[in-house]
């Protein structure tokens, strides 16, 4: 695979162009060309793609697209370009498994095929903004969900009375605090070796992340450390500088991306190709050991609309069939926590992921926009569903999803806000408050069994 130092050199010596030209003259025309050449079309007959040949064509189109486009570096205004051979090398040599955690909590994550009989990866927790007084209890509650094999830590943006700002010294303090809370919460749950694979969401710049990850504060190479581009296929030096640091530490690197339907990628077909191309960017530029995606719809800022679900399904199927890298997805729900609509959206999202062969991070309520707006029940539901749906085929999943989507789609533009965690969850007893318990067990869990034949809490 192309050497990382060559990538650094290309970042400073590659073709130079204004960002607008990259978007308008390179990205958009190349995408349009490959969509036409490979005849990528969503016929709207099914939400979850069942056509393997189409998934493979999306993958092929993405190779040609990424060869033509590359990754734009915003600091140098240059493009890191790769030849087709280099991309193919990257695909061949990409890590096919990643080891998370330590001791009894050590876990290996692998890529899967669509219609797999394997249990896909379960990730718990939420990287949403959280009040410091709730953070430790929440981590403990998430870590107690035994089916979860990796964990996200809430974002803490306050250090005593000071609100942290990106790149500021206070952000380093918030990052260190976040790590300490994470480790302490896992220890309290009896899972001290559990890997935190969204590290560190309280830090948003390369410098502050590197400062806060120093091992004396509790960070481990067996955690997962994310490298984030900006939409679409752009990266800056602040983010890129994390890569050589993490490589030299021997730490697990995760490529994360949130391509936007309706943005530069255009419609669902473009989103599918761009989402796939991020896997190549991830391996070659971010040097990823694993991958996470969270595509959203530009207007509804969620993932549970059919066009996003289709794009997610076809792209991860293509990646699974042709690359088989460790891959999971975080899909955003429009509805807030503790609402029936949230659970329907989560069901549609998880049906898509499990049947397509991707791991699952619990869908986040309220577009992950509401402070304290995520609950441990979201994670528990997600893990239970992943286990209950193990082995489901795409055809079977489509039959269910066709009945689920009508239950929420009319409210997608104006979803209920739901409740914050302190309103619906008892953070002392680590269980839902009575009204939420009733909604969840008597409403959601029962309905799943009676209406859809999906039984949770079987084992």
């Amino acid at each position, binding site marked *: 695979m192309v050497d990382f130092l060559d990538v650094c050199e290309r970042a400073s010596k590659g073709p130079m162009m204004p960002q607008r030209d990259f978007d308008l003259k390179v990205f958009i025309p190349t995408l349009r060309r490959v969509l036409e050449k490979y005849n990528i079309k969503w016929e709207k007959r099914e939400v979850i793609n069942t056509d393997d040949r189409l998934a493979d064509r999306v993958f092929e189109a993405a190779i040609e697209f990424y060869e033509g486009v590359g990754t734009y570096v915003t600091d140098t205004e240059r493009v890191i370009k790769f030849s087709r051979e280099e991309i193919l090398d990257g695909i061949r040599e990409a890590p096919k498994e990643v080891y998370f955690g330590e001791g009894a909590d050590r876990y290996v994550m692998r890529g899967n095929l669509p219609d797999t009989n394997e249990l896909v990866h379960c990730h718990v927790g939420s990287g949403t903004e959280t009040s410091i007084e709730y953070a430790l209890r929440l981590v403990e509650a998430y870590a107690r969900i035994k089916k979860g094999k990796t964990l996200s830590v809430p974002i803490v943006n306050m250090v005593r009375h000071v609100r942290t700002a990106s790149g500021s010294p206070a952000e380093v303090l918030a990052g260190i605090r976040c790590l300490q809370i994470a480790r302490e919460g896992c220890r309290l749950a009896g899972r001290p070796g559990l890997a935190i694979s969204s590290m560190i969401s309280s830090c948003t*710049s390369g410098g502050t992340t590197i400062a806060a990850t120093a091992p004396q504060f509790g960070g481990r190479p067996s955690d997962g450390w994310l490298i984030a581009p*900006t939409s679409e296929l752009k990266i800056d030096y602040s983010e890129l500088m994390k890569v050589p640091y993490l490589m030299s530490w021997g730490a697990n690197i995760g490529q994360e991306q949130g391509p936007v339907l309706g943005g*530069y990628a255009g419609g669902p077909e473009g989103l599918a190709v761009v989402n796939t191309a991020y896997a190549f960017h991830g391996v070659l530029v971010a040097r990823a050991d694993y991958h996470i995606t969270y595509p959203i719809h530009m207007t509804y800022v969620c993932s549970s609309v059919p066009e996003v679900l289709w794009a997610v399904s076809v792209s991860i199927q293509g990646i699974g069939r042709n690359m088989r890298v460790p891959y999971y997805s975080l899909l955003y729900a429009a509805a807030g926590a503790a609402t029936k609509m949230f659970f329907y959206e989560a069901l549609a999202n998880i049906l898509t992921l499990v049947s397509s062969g991707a791991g699952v991070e619990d869908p986040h309520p309220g577009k992950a926009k509401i402070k304290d707006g995520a609950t441990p029940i979201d994670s528990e539901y997600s893990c239970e569903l992943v286990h209950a749906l193990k082995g489901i085929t795409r055809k079977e999943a489509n039959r269910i999803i066709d009945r689920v989507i009508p239950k929420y789609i009319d409210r997608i533009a104006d979803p209920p806000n739901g409740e914050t965690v302190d309103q619906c969850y008892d953070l002392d007893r680590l269980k839902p408050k009575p009204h939420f318990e009733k909604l969840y067990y008597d409403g959601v869990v029962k309905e799943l069994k009676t209406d859809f034949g999906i039984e949770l809490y079987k084992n």
Partner: protein
Amino acid sequence: MNEKIKDQLKNAIIGGNTEVLLKNIDKIIRSKKEDPLKIIQDAMIPAIRNVGDMFGRGEIFLPEMLMAAETFQSGMKVIEPKLIDSGRRIEKIGKVVFGTVLNDIHEIGKNIVITLMRTHGFEVYDIGANVSPITFVEKAKDVGADIIAMSALMTTTMTYQKDVIDYLREEGERDKYIILVGGGPVDNEWAEKIGADGTSDTAPGAVELAERLILERKREAR
């Protein structure tokens, strides 16, 4: 204006076909039968507004809107000098200084709203990403802006939106500008808390808000 020609101009803009648009404009100008202002008012502006509306309804996406906007701008570059020669100009709804705040390099949301604002007749100064608070204010003063619009994608960068407003207050210039804030984590509660004039979850909503606030300000000024 001849309906057939008008349709040709409109279709060229909607389809993002710069070559066809410029060829038709050239033909019209050479014939000297049409007032250049009519070309803009009767064909080009309705077409680009239509593009904005189609985007708002989800019928087209950003690539199509960007291409149409580029085509529109190419046409304007040819026609505007003719207008200036005859001592006229196109009235803009208002001037907007738009950027992504300090330490935030996310631009897609900003770029979508800017493109949509331009289709609705705003003159927008795009000052890019990672913009310091004082740069927002200095640029607004320089161009005589009506609106300062700030985008932020992260909870740790939206705090810089507040810094711009605080600085304007310190300078005694807060009331001179309409302040709009937006981005992933931004909601009405945040906008209200920091003293912004408004926010919207969607790009079409942001443009509607800007139009409404400009109109209100103009009414108050009368």
